[in-house]
């Protein structure tokens, strides 16, 4: 390497950037914030331009202000005060609105001296087109806009050490050796989106999505099915594009689309810089983690690459991980990267001869995977994560059995979870089922997590590769004594034990610790309001722990004397499968079928039957918690509504509990039931539509209203209100409720009441 020697500097890099105009992209991101913070704090004579994308109704400037209140600027805020900091920004910073990911002209100042391009996607497996958009096309657009504006600045292009791809051994700080044409790849990547979108719309595909959606949501109604089918289509497209990306990257020698597109970005930067005669420095940091010193020790935003694994390990969720124990995990603290970038920005290379810098630790101060594991384990043994109400996590011990064994274990776990999932999803509704679903979901989450990270990070933990940083080190050595103190980035300076145990792990787990203390299960809060608030209660399964079929069969039996039981039972049993089937398919259909049995019954007779026998049955099964909740709502002045598909006369015993009862109306002719419904029954999605109309008519505030239901088929009802509650939910609703953080309650019967009660036959 010829260029590894830099002349010893006489002046500091601060002076090097004095009076310079510096454009920073990705200010809202992790590195961007840190860079800007340092520029504001240490480079009083540098003027800044921030390229910020306006978002969701907030302008670029508003976003900048929001970021200024983040922890990265704590020290600055303390020094200047919040207003003082804003004044400082007003004075030294120009905010330019624009989005490099979009094909829009960027209006950039014409007198830029340095460009720090930090914007990048953080995801490792984005869909192929998104990867290209941000990592490649973003840079292309930016550099073209700069060239078009007439500035001739020094481009500092932030890439990653892993652009080297699947190569082993020692990687030099030089241009990448490949012949892939980024323009073709980019064009085809964008094309892939169109192809996949088109493929997903083929009838065979759409029918499959519909079929799957119907199988899961059939009872909820056609609209829910349609929504779900579309969700499935979108998910399929994304998954497919991710696969496009991964496989394309791998056929060209990169582990994933992230490194692949970053490599393409470098090449594009090289070409454009050469074309327009711009000086170019390419910075390739390895795995960036929390800051060692600046803005404060342990500063981190969100989770970086190693953190999800560190956290999951701390939760005891990763029993074993693939990876070579001696493999080098190349971690570098964020402030080292920032300092190196600033030094690089002040060191302008000749146009046409780009400078490459690895900001990494692997060659000078290697951290082996087993040491990382040991130190993290040491941290957790001293400071275990709490489990709510159950003490602390004991972290597992890894034996590094090799990727193959881990893979086999993982596959076994995946198969187990799949089978378990199928089993629990078909269990009847019960508290036990819900506990099992929770457990299986938890297990699945863990298995999927390990799978994802094992696939993604396999290369990062297995690669026996060293990124040389001779050039970066030479740059370091060329700095003045003062700069070395102020802007340290010498990797051999890192004490891994101190960094991991005292700085990084506490920083990563702090959020989780705070969260687990504060994050309680979602709870129902009943509030009084000015406007009319509704509280809707589903009946079957929610306030009565039985389904319609059971209660109807019961009522039917109670209506008959003993000697007619065998005949009726025989007939009923013969029909129960078809009833249950009808109920599974469509509750309305079941009700229509069942109500036929009441053809010819007198209104008076049914009322008497209900008052004398059904009433006791219902009250005995009525959930006490439900009654309490209804009454709480009434007390708060809410209008309580019972909403049920059961026939009106059968609801009589509990009707007084509610302000209003919405039930199926049976057709009556001359005091005798015809066996037909007077109106279609209100089930599934019809409830949502009915509710919206009702609320409009009555002037009720649905946002403040409540709905209680147990079944996935009531989703439409639940989603129509602001406070949905899943009561003793079935597996499908349980999952929806957990995902959306709806309160989940268990309303059972009071202890000591018989679960099964036989009706007493009618007296004659």
């Amino acid at each position, binding site marked *: 390497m010829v260029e590894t020697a830099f002349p010893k500097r006489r002046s500091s890099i601060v002076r090097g950037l004095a009076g310079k105009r510096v454009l920073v992209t990705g200010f809202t991101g992790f590195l961007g914030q840190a860079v800007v913070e340092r520029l504001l704090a240490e480079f009083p004579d540098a003027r800044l331009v921030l390229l910020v994308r306006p978002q969701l109704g907030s302008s670029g400037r508003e976003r900048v202000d929001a970021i200024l209140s983040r922890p990265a600027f704590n020290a600055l805020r303390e020094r200047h005060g919040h207003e003082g900091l804003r004044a400082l920004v007003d004075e030294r910073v120009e905010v330019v609105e624009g989005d490099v990911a979009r094909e829009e002209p960027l209006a950039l100042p014409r007198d830029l001296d340095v460009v720090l391009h930090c914007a990048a996607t953080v995801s490792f497996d984005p869909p192929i087109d998104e990867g290209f958009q941000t990592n490649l096309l973003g840079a292309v657009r930016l550099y073209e806009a700069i060239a078009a504006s007439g500035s001739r600045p020094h481009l500092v292009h932030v890439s990653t050490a892993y652009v080297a791809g699947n190569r082993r051994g020692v990687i030099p700080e030089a241009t990448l050796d490949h012949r892939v044409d980024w323009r073709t790849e980019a064009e085809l990547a964008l094309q892939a989106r169109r192809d996949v979108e088109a493929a997903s719309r083929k009838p065979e595909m759409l029918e499959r999505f519909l079929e799957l959606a119907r199988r899961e949501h059939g009872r909820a109604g056609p609209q829910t099915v349609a929504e779900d089918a579309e969700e499935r289509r979108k998910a399929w497209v994304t998954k497919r594009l991710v696969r496009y990306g991964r496989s394309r990257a791998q056929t060209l020698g990169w582990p994933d689309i992230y490194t692949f597109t970053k490599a393409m970005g470098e090449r594009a930067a090289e070409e454009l810089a050469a074309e327009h005669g711009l000086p170019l420095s390419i910075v390739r940091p390895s795995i960036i983690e929390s800051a060692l010193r600046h803005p404060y020790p342990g500063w981190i935003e969100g989770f970086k690459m190693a953190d999800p694994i560190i956290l999951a390990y701390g939760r005891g969720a990763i029993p074993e991980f693939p990876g070579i124990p001696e493999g080098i995990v190349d971690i570098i603290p964020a402030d080292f990267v920032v300092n190196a970038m600033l030094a690089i920005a002040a060191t302008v290379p000749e146009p046409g001869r780009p400078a490459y810098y690895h900001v990494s630790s692997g060659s000078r101060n290697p951290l082996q995977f087993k040491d990382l594991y040991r130190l993290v384990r040491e941290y957790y043994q001293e400071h275990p994560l709490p489990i709510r109400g159950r003490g602390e996590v004991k972290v597992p011990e890894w034996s590094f059995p090799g990727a193959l064994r881990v893979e086999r274990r993982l596959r076994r776990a995946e198969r187990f979870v799949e089978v378990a999932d199928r089993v629990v999803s078909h269990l009847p509704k019960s508290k036990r089922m819900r506990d099992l679903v929770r457990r299986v979901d938890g297990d699945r989450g863990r298995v999927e997590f390990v799978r994802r990270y094992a696939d993604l990070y396999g290369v990062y933990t297995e690669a026996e590769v060293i990124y040389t940083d001779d050039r970066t080190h030479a740059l370091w050595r060329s700095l003045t004594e003062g700069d070395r103190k102020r802007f340290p980035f010498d990797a051999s300076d890192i004490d891994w034990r101190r960094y991991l145990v005292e700085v990084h792990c506490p920083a990563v787990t702090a959020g989780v610790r705070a969260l687990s203390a504060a994050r309680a299960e979602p709870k129902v809060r009943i509030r009084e309001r000015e406007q009319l608030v509704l509280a809707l209660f589903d009946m079957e399964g929610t306030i009565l722990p039985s389904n319609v079929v059971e209660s109807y069969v019961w009522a039917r039996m109670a209506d008959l004397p003993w000697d007619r039981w065998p005949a009726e039972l025989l007939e009923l049993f013969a029909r129960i499968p078809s009833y249950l089937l009808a109920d599974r398919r469509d509750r309305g259909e079941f009700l229509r079928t069942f109500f036929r049995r009441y053809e010819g019954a007198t209104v008076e007779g049914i009322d008497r039957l209900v*008052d004398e026998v059904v*009433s*006791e049955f219902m*009250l*005995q*099964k*009525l959930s*006490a*918690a439900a*009654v*309490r909740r209804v*009454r709480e709502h009434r007390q708060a002045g809410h209008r309580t509504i019972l909403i049920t598909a059961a026939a009106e006369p059968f609801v009589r*015993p509990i009707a*007084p*509990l509610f302000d209003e009862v919405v039930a199926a109306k049976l057709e009556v002719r001359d005091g005798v039931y015809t066996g037909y419904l007077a109106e279609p029954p209100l089930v599934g999605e019809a409830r949502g539509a009915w509710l919206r109309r009702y609320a409009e008519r009555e002037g009720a505030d649905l946002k403040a209203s409540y709905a209680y239901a147990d079944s996935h088929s009531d989703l439409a009802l639940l989603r129509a209100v602001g406070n949905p509650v899943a009561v003793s939910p079935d597996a499908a609703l349980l999952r929806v409720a957990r995902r959306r953080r709806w309160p989940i309650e268990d309303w059972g*019967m*009071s*202890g*000591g*009441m*018989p679960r099964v009660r036989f009706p007493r036959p009618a007296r004659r």
Partner: protein
Amino acid sequence: MARPGFVLEVDERTPPLLVHEGEGFRLERFPLGTRVIYPPDPLPRIRDVRGAIRHALANPHGSEPLADLLKPGMRLTIAIDDISLPLPPMQAPDIRQLVLEEVIELAARKGVEDLKLTMANSLHRRMTADEIKHAVGERVFRSFYPHDLKNHDAEDRENLLFVGTTEKGEEVEINKRAATSDLIVYVNINLVPMDGGHKSVPVGLASYRSVRHHHNVHTMLHSRSYMDPREGRSAIHDSCRRMGKVLEDAGIRIFTIETTLNNETFPEPFGFMNRREWEWSAKEQATYLAAKKLNDLTPPAVRHQVWMRMRSPVGVTGINAGATDPVHERTLSKIHEQQLVHVEGQSDVLVFGIPYVGPYNVNSIMNPILVHCLGLGYLFNMYRNKPLVRPGGVVIMFHPVPWEFHQVHHPSYIDFFEEVLAETTDPATIESKFEERYATDPWYIHLYRTSYAYHGVHPFYMWYWGAHALDYLGDVIVVGGNRRACERMGYRAATTFKDALEMASETVGRSPSITYFHMPPYLIADVS
């Protein structure tokens, strides 16, 4: 002559003693020196009960014979004690049936046509048809149910009559049909001294408006004990007496028929429970072992059914009729003859077992609040003069206190337990903060009137019954109690009797004096 009750002092030869614990029982060894109080043996039963009834009706106290009070064209209402008496329900024929048959026959002979029967259930739950049939007998049931034989409805505004107020401002409001009748005949069963007398009509046929004047915390704290209804001892009975006076002044004529029973409480094969342990025959010992084993092994639901089907073989010991006061005086003396045991002085610890049934869980579930009521309400108060335990002493009860409720019978109890007790156990706070809301709640009223639910306010009374004991005791420990349920009521749960004594030592020291109140069969301790 039946043997009187007596006090045994536990020594080396004393066998383990029978202790009731809900739907179960056990033999427990007591520390040496423990005083055990046994009830007197059963009084001899009247052989010719019908004859005795006719004699009582013809020779009343302080009244003309019933036959002379019955006239054609008159309005006659017969009020009858409800499901809460006797305990356990008695084997057929129920004494109420026998009395009713005599009274109704007499009325028919005298040409009375306007006759209605009312179960005097006050704020208790309505009785089911089967329960009424058991109490009044098949004949009466068939002739009068459902139109002329009904449950009293304390929330039927149409059918209540405000009669007046006592000199202390207590409102008297009772069943209108009864109040406007020419004669009320009250058919009573007097199990314990608390029952009967002026507690019959002014309470049994009253509404909440009227009942709240004596069923409240203040009255409870001033009834020491309400098992001792002598004037000035029990505020609740004083109040009832004043109300009875108001009825009398309003010209409402009451002919009271009070009956007393002996304490032959448990039927065979559970007869051993009626007897003293060291006198158990070989057969009884074997029965105990078998019954205990069987009971422990049976699934709870089946066990519950078995206990609930138990019908008591009690014998009738007395029938008195006529004016309320002279009749009740005789009734009380008969009860005392059967139940009173003289005991010298108080002890530091009082121990008793809670049996499976109390007045409010016949054919139902004994929920934690009913355990409280039966234990600290009724059993603790089974004394005259002063409690068996010293002020600040400890009560140790035996009961599993399961977190169970009957949803049809006790809906307001569930909410009371979940909502009220979760906030406070202080009776006065509970009364001022929650009572009215529960008492006037339309849903509870609906259930009370149309289903078989106790009135919404009833769990409050159950809690108030124990107010005096809560105020008086240093600690309450329940052996075998559900920890959560006990904690909610301010009790402490112990796994074994030894643990309970250990826990009690924090309050009463290492060597406390202990009294074991051996019941049921029930007894009243006359503590000097």
